[in-house]
C-alpha cells in the first residue's frame, strides 16, 4: 500500500450509455487525481455525470473508454469478483438515499459488509457496536431503517461505510435527503473521518456551503471537468 502517488486516478475516462437509438455521453473525457488524505468535493448541476463518475471510481461500473487506477491498479482488467473485493475492502459508499437494507436492523446493516469479507461473527458484532457508538446511535442498534429518521439512517450508512476500514469513502450527495442541521452534523462526521482517520473522501454535492468542508473542489459540467476560467 504505497502512500505515494494518487489513491484514485482517472485518465481520459468516458462513459457512454446506449439506449436504443439514443446515445448518452454521461462522462466525456475526465482526467483526475485524488491524493491520499484528500477531501475532494465534486460539484455540478444535476445530470452532469457526477454519480456516473462515482460509480466508476467505486468499481460499480467500468468506463466505456479510458483508465481508472485505484491505488495504482487498473480496475478495467479486474474480474467481477475482484471488483466486488475492491468495493468491499477499499471503498466505503454513502448514498443520498441512505440505501440501508430495509429488513435488517441498524446493527445488522453495519455488520453486513464484514460478512461479505468473511469476518467472524463476534468480531463483526463488536466492530459494528463501536461504529454505531461512534455515530451516536448506540441506542438505535436494533431498530429497522424505517424506524429511524433520515439523519439517523445516514449515520448508520456512514457507520456501514467504515466497517472494512476502507481507504476511500465515496459520498454521493450524502446530505441531499436530510434537513440542514442534520446535514451539518453529517458533514462534521465526514470531516472528522478525513482529519482524524485520514480517510480519502470524494463527496458529490451541489451545495456550495458544503463544499467548504473539502480541501479541494472539482466542478463537472456536461460530463467534463470545468477548469477555472472556462
Amino acid at each position, binding site marked *: 500500500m504505497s502512500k505515494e502517488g494518487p489513491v484514485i486516478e482517472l485518465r481520459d475516462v468516458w462513459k457512454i450509455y446506449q439506449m436504443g437509438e439514443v446515445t448518452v455521453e454521461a462522462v466525456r473525457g475526465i482526467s483526475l487525481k485524488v491524493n491520499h488524505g484528500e477531501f475532494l468535493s465534486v460539484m455540478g448541476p444535476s445530470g452532469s455525470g457526477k454519480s456516473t463518475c462515482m460509480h466508476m471510481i467505486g468499481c460499480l*461500473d467500468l468506463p466505456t473508454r479510458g483508465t481508472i487506477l485505484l491505488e495504482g491498479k487498473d480496475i478495467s482488467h479486474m474480474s467481477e*469478483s475482484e471488483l*466486488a473485493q475492491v468495493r468491499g475492502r477499499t471503498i466505503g459508499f454513502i448514498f443520498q438515499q441512505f440505501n440501508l*437494507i430495509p*429488513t*435488517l436492523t441498524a446493527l445488522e446493516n453495519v455488520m453486513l*459488509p464484514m460478512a461479505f469479507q468473511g469476518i467472524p461473527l463476534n468480531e463483526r458484532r463488536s466492530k459494528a457496536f463501536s461504529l454505531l457508538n461512534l455515530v451516536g446511535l448506540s441506542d438505535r442498534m436494533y431498530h429497522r431503517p424505517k424506524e429511524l429518521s433520515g439523519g439517523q439512517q445516514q449515520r448508520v450508512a456512514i457507520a456501514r461505510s467504515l466497517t472494512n476500514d476502507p481507504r476511500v469513502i465515496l459520498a454521493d450527495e450524502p446530505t441531499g435527503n436530510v434537513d440542514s442541521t442534520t446535514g451539518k452534523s453529517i458533514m462534521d462526521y465526514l470531516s472528522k473521518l478525513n482529519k482524524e482517520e485520514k480517510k480519502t473522501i470524494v463527496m458529490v454535492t451541489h451545495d456550495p456551503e458544503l463544499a467548504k468542508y473539502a480541501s479541494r473542489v472539482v466542478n463537472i459540467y456536461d460530463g467534463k471537468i470545468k477548469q477555472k476560467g472556462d
Partner: protein
Amino acid sequence: MLFDYFLISIRNLTSRRTRTVLTMIGIFIGIAAIVSLISIGQGMRIAINEQFNQLGTDKLMIFPGGESGVPGGTFGSEAKKLTDDDMNVVKGVSGIKDAGGMAYGVARLKYGDVSKYAFIIGLPLDSSRKVIESMQSLKVADGRDLQENDKSKMTVGSELSKGTFFGTPVMMGEKIMVNDAPYRVVGFMEPVGNPSDDSQVYMPLEEVRKLLNKGNALDYIIAQVVQDSDIDQVKSDVQKALRRFRNVKQGQEDFSVQTTAQLMQTLDVVLNVIEIVFIGIAAISLVVGGIGIMNTMYTSVLERTTEIGIMKAIGARNFDITAIFVVESGLLGMLGGGIGIILGIALSKGIEYITSAVLGVTYLKAYFPLYLVLGALGFSFIVGCLAGGLPALRASRLNPVEALRYE
C-alpha cells in the same frame, strides 16, 4: 457467511408473511401427500411382511385352478378340485415334510334368535394341523383349541365373543346352530385385526365337509418342505407329481403351486405400482409448488433490485447474491416441507384411525422412519433451491448501477 444468508432470507420471509405462507401451501400439499402415502405404504409392507414371516419361507401353497385362475375361487368342476388324494400325493414327494389341507365355505349361523351367514373354516385335527395354523395366526384367547376327536365343537372369532356379530356376546359352552346342526363353543380366538376374519368360526375339517357337501375336497393345501431343501426344486417336484396324478400336461395345470416368496413378490409388485402412481401424483403437485416458489422468487428479485445493488456496492460477490436467493427459496421449500410433514403425519394417523375405528382393520399402522422425515425435509429444500436457481441467477447478474437506479 452461511449464517448471514439465512439471516437475510429469514428476515425477508418474515417481513412478507402472507406471500410466504401462500407460497408454502404449494409445497406442503405435495409433501403431505408424499409423507402420508409412504408412511401408509410402509406400514402396509410391514404388516404383510409380518404375516409372511409368521408363515415362514418353507411353505408351498397348492390351490385348485391354473396359474392364471384366482386361487381357491375357481368355478372348477368336480374333477378340478383338490382332494385328500392330492394331498397324499404331495406328502409322498421327497422333500416334503408334512402337508395339511383345509376346507371352508359360507354357512348360516344361528345364536339365540339371530341368524347370520359367516365363513366356517374346517381345520384338520391331526398332526398336519400345525402346517395349516402357520397360515393364519390362530391363537386361543379364552377356553381351549379344537382337539382330536372333537365332535360338534367349535371355536369362534373375536367378533362373536365381543358381541358385535350377533348383537349379543356368544357365551362359552353355549351352542350355535350351523346350518341347523348344533355346535358347542369351546374357545374364543384372539383378534386377527380385521372384522371379516374375526367373524369366522373354526370347526373340525370333516364336519365342515359334511355340512357343505364337499366330500373329500380341500380348498387349499399347505405343504412344509424339509429343512434346508431347495424349495424351488421341491415345488417343481410337487408340480410334476400332481400333473402325473391328475393326468394333465405341463402348461395346462388345473392347480397351482406357489412359494411364500412368490406370493410376497406378487404383493410387493402390486404395492410398488400403487406407491409409484400415488407418489407420481404427489410429485406433480410438488412441481406445481416449485413453480409457485419460482414465481415468488422472481417477484422478490424484482422488488429487491435496489437491495441487490446496495449489497453489491458494499462488497457482495455475484456468488453471495445467488446464495442469498437460493437459500431463501430453499428455506421457503423447507418450511413448506416441514408443515407438509406434520400434515402428512396427521393425515396418515387419521387414515390409521379410520381404518381401525370404522373398518376395524387394526394391523394397518402408519410408519414414520427417520429417513422419511429427513428425506422429505431435504427434498423440499432441494425443490425450493431448484425453483429459486433461475431467479437467483438473474439477481446475481444485475448490473449494480442499474440496480441502484431502479425505482
